[in-house]
C-alpha cells in the first residue's frame, strides 16, 4: 500500500465538493484514461469579479487522484481566476502534506484541470504540453520523457550528468540501469556510443569539456570571469524557475563562488543536488575547478562585511 498522509486519506475518504457544479460556467476535462486518471473540474465564476464562487470535481482515479481533486476545489474557492492560476502542482501536494513520487502526476493533473477550466471560461483553447513517460527515478519522481528531453537538449552522455541536470538517479541509485539503457539509445540515435564506468565516477574527478579548453582561465581578467559566471547562472535560471526556485550570484572569491538559492530549491533536500548541477556547468564553461557554495554557508566575518 502507498504511504499516504493523513490529509490525503481524509480527502479521499471524505472528499469535498464531489460532483459537478450545477450552473457551472467553466469546465476543464483532463487526464488519460489509459493511465487510469482523469478529472472533470467544474467552476462557477462570478463574471464581474472573476471570483470562483463554487467548484466541483468528478474523478476517475486512484485515492490520491480523488484527494488531489478534492484539495484543488477547496483551494480555488474564493480566489479570482488569476489568483487560482498561480496554484502550482507543488502547492496542491503541499496542501495534502505530500504525495508519494509515483503519485505526483495526480497533482499535475489538478493544476492542468484548472488551466483548462480557466481557458474554457475565457473562450481560449488550452494547449496541453503534457507528456508523461514511464517513471524511472522513484526517489525524485523523474520520468523517461523528461530524461530523454534533457539528454537531447544538453548533449548529456553519462549517468552523473543526467543526475546533475534532472536529479534522476541521485537518490538510491537503483534506477541507474534504466538511465543507462536510455543513454545507450539516445547516444546511438546521435551517432555516439555510451561508455559507462563500472563503479560510478570518482569523487572530485570532473571531466572537462574539451571543446571549451581554449577559454583557459589565464586568458580571462577577473571581471571577465565574473561576467562569465553570471552568464552561466542566467542560463540556468529558467530551468530552476520552472521548478519554483531561483539562483543569484552573491560573490566570487578565488575558486569559491557564493550563490543564493531561493524558492523551492532553498533548504530542501534538492539544494545539494542543484548546487552540484550548477557547479558542474560552471566547471565546464570556465575550464577550471570551482566550488559553488550557498551564500548562507559563508564565513560570518566576510558575509558581514
Amino acid at each position, binding site marked *: *500500500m502507498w504511504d499516504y498522509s493523513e490529509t490525503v486519506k481524509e480527502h*479521499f*475518504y471524505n*472528499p469535498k465538493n*464531489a*460532483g459537478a457544479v450545477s450552473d457551472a460556467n467553466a469546465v476543464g*476535462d*483532463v*487526464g*488519460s*484514461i*489509459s*493511465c*487510469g*486518471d*482523469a*478529472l*472533470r473540474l467544474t467552476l462557477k465564476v462570478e463574471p464581474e469579479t472573476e471570483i470562483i464562487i463554487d467548484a466541483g*470535481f*468528478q*474523478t*476517475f*482515479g*486512484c*485515492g*490520491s*487522484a*480523488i484527494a488531489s481533486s478534492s484539495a484543488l476545489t477547496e483551494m480555488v474557492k474564493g480566489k479570482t481566476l488569476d489568483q487560482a492560476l498561480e496554484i502550482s502542482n507543488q502547492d496542491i501536494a503541499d496542501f495534502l502534506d505530500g504525495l508519494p513520487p*509515483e*503519485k505526483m502526476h495526480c497533482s499535475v493533473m489538478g493544476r*492542468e484541470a484548472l488551466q*483548462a477550466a480557466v481557458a474554457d471560461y475565457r473562450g481560449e483553447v*488550452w494547449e*496541453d504540453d*503534457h507528456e*508523461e*513517460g*514511464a*517513471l524511472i527515478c*522513484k526517489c525524485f519522481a523523474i520520468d523517461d520523457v523528461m530524461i530523454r528531453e534533457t539528454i537531447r537538449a544538453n548533449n548529456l552522455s553519462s549517468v552523473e550528468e543526467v543526475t546533475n541536470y534532472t536529479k534522476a538517479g541521485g537518490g538510491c541509485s537503483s534506477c541507474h540501469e534504466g538511465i543507462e539503457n536510455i543513454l545507450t539509445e539516445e547516444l546511438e540515435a546521435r551517432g555516439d556510443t555510451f561508455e559507462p564506468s563500472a563503479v560510478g565516477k570518482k569523487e572530485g574527478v570532473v571531466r572537462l569539456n574539451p571543446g571549451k579548453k581554449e577559454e583557459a582561465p589565464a586568458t580571462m581578467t577577473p571581471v571577465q570571469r565574473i561576467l562569465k559566471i553570471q552568464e552561466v547562472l542566467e542560463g540556468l535560471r529558467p530551468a530552476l524557475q520552472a521548478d519554483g526556485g531561483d539562483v543569484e550570484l552573491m560573490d566570487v572569491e578565488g575558486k569559491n563562488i557564493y550563490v543564493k538559492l531561493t524558492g523551492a530549491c532553498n533548504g530542501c533536500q534538492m539544494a545539494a543536488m542543484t548546487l552540484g548541477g550548477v557547479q558542474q556547468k560552471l566547471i565546464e564553461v570556465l575550464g577550471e575547478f570551482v566550488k559553488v557554495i550557498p551564500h548562507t554557508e559563508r564565513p560570518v566575518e566576510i558575509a558581514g562585511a
Partner: protein
Amino acid sequence: MADIYLDNNATTMCDPDVVQELMPYFSEQFGNPSSLHSFGNKVGFAIKKARQQVQKLLGAEHDSEIIFTSCGSESDSTAILSALKAQPERKEIITTVVEHPAVLTLCEYLETEGYTVHKLKVDSKGNLDMDEYASLLTDKVAVVSVMWANNETGTIFPVLEMAEMADEKGIMFHTDAVQAVGKIPMNLADSKIHMLSLSGHKLHAPKGVGVLYLRRGVRFRPLLRGGHQERGRRAGTENTTGIVGLGKACELAMEHMEYENTAVAEMRDRLQEGILAAVPHSFVTGNPENRLPNTVNIAFEYIEGEAILLLMNKQGVAASSGSACTSGSLEPSHVMKAMGIPYTAAHGTVRFSLSRYNTPEEIERVIEAVPPIVAQLRKLSPYWGDNGPVENPEEAFAPVYA
C-alpha cells in the same frame, strides 16, 4: 470483527501445522545438512522427507527431480536460462503475453541480448490460439515457457497438451505452476512437462522457498554454481526451515485438494454471483469455465481499482487490483490489456482469491460490503450519471490527453 483475507494469489498464511513442523529447525536442529556429525545428519533426513512430500504432490517419478530454490522467480529464471545455456545454437523462446513478470521481464531482457521471444496472444477470455503455438515450434526454439494458471484471472492453460506438442518436436517445455500447485491435481510422471516452477508461499508454506522440478534426463545448467547442494544443481546452504515447511505444506495440500476444488470453489462461485447480482456494469474477466477454484476477477466499470481497494481495506476486506495505480505504472495490468478489456473497465478490476481458511460467513460479508463501495466511487466518476453510466460515456467525457 476480524479482517477478511481474499488475496491468496499474492501470498498465503503459513499453515499452523507447517509452522509447528519447521520451528525446531531454527533451534535444536540448526545443523548444516552437509555436515557429517549428528547435528547435520538429522537435518539431512528432514530435507529428504520434504523432497519426497513435494515429489508426491507433483506426481514426479523420482525425488531427485525436485530442486529446492529460494522462490518461484528463481525457479523460472533457472529453467529458462538453463535451456538457453544448454542449447546455445537455439535462439528463440516461446511464451505468452500474460505470463508473470518473473518470466516476462526476463524474456524482455533476453530480447536485448539477441534472443527472439515469441509471445502467444490471448483472446478476450484469455485463451491461447493453439494453431499459432503449433506454427512456432521449430528447431530454433530453445524453450517454451507457459504458465499453468494465470495469477490475475485464474485462467488455466492446456499445458499438458502443449508439453506433448513441444516434446514431440524435441523442444524443452517449462511451466510456471506457481498458482496451480496445490489447486490442480498433477501427475508429472505421466506428462511431457520437462521443468516446472512452484513457490512455497502460495500454498501455505513460508516465503523464500521454491522448487524447480527438473525431469530426469533433461539437460541442465545451474544458475548458481558453488557447493554440491541439490546435487550441484543449486549451490548455497539449504533454507532448511523453508524446505521442511514446504514439505509439510505439500502434504497438507494433497489432503485439501478435494476441499479446495469443492468447498472453496463453491464459496468463490457464491461471491461472484452475489457481487454480479448486486453491482450493475460489472463482469468477470478471464475464462470462468476453466480457471482455478479459488480465483475470481471482476471488472467494475467506470471506477478505478486502487480507490476500490482502499475503501475495501477500510472495511477490513483485502484483495488486489490490476489498475495502473496499484503498481505505480502507467498502464493497467498487461493481462487485462492482452484480453482487450477497455481501459474504463481494466483499471477497475479486482481480484478476489480465496483459500481453505475462508468461511461462507466471510463471503456474505464481502458481498454486503462491495456494492456500496462501488456506488460511492461511481458517484465521483465523470462517466457516471444519476442512475448509470452517462450516455456514450467515452464521448461525453473525453479528457484532453486521452
